[in-house]
């Protein structure tokens, strides 16, 4: 299983070398608000099914508007997510009391998985499959609230073309762009497609440093 997974993933990105030991992660949150406490005390909550059904109706509407052109639906979902990400980052920073930015991408991955996903979707995806240059990782979702109640259309295309939760890729892209990171994110597997896991690949393209001239060296 592990071997087949590796070979499958191998098509998607550079062959992963044995990842170096993770860099020590300095805590970026004030001790007053560890993440479980944030979820319990600082987050206004609503019934999960309201959120899940609302997402479902958005995806269904897009499929209708774009005549089941799933490639286009993926794009639209990513775009919506991007717009959300641009705004959601402020909530993330305000609620988590984050005062300093992550010093490297490994730290960013930790914050995304353990704080971001926790406070917005109450899940903590697993970070895995780092590349040796620490610029790409995967988020593996054991649980995906958006996919509750979902069975993709049986039209011989949806399971090959539609990434049902694609909005999440856009959210990551938008949110990280606002804190000066250009990333690329896409799903490489989804249990809704019949895969055994739901996995998103996230890559750092570059740090956006607007106060410095573009790197010339």
């Amino acid at each position: 299983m592990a071997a087949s997974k590796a070979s499958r993933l191998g098509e998607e990105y550079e062959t992963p070398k044995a990842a170096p030991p993770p860099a020590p992660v300095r805590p970026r949150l004030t001790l007053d608000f560890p993440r479980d406490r944030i979820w319990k005390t600082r987050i206004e909550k609503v019934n999960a099914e309201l959120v899940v059904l609302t997402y479902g109706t958005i995806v269904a509407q897009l499929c209708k508007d774009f005549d089941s052109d799933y490639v286009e639906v993926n794009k639209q979902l990513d775009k919506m997510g991007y717009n959300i990400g641009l705004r959601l980052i402020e909530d993330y920073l305000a609620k988590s009391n984050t005062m300093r930015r992550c010093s490297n991408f490994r730290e960013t991955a930790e914050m995304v998985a353990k704080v971001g996903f926790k406070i917005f979707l109450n899940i903590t995806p697993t970070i895995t499959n780092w590349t040796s240059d620490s610029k790409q990782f995967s988020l593996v979702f054991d649980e995906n609230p958006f996919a509750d109640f979902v069975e993709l259309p049986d039209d011989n295309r949806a399971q090959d073309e539609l990434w049902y939760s694609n909005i999440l890729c856009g959210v990551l892209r938008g949110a990280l762009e606002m804190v000066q990171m250009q990333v690329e994110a896409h799903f490489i597997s989804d249990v809704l497609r019949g895969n055994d896991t739901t996995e998103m690949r996230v890559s750092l393209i570059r740090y956006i440093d607007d106060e410095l001239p573009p790197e010339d060296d």
Partner: protein
Amino acid sequence: MFFRTIFALIIINKAGGLIYNKTFHEAGLNKISTNDYLVLAGTFHGVHAITTRLNPVKAPSNRTSMQSGILTRPDPPSGLEVLESENFRLQCFTTLTGIKFLLFTDTTQANVDLTIRRIYEMYSDYVMKNPFYQLEMPIRCDMFDRKLLSYIREINNR
């Protein structure tokens, strides 16, 4: 005499544009024109940008670099944070996304940090979650005004 009073709030977008200004206590600060506020916002933004570059020479480089095989970047240097006159104090809070919240208060005002952070939370709720608000544009959100006013009133009447 007014002690412990919040006079006004200004919000400046990433590009230095004034996107919000509200005076809470008419008797506290003399009225200045919207144009003056625009100039104030732009000027503060510019001065802030220059002060972020005014680092002691020996400070570690501000550049992204490789450290033990990982691309690393340091925290951005903070710029001007407080400006004080005989009659008021101006505190600036810059978010990691580059928005500046400027709070004008009485010079003896306590807990300004907390107040600004609470305002930031309101901004993230009532501005950023409003489908009719366009990023970087002037803020016209009834709900934000209402929540902000009642919060500040509570502090000023304390």
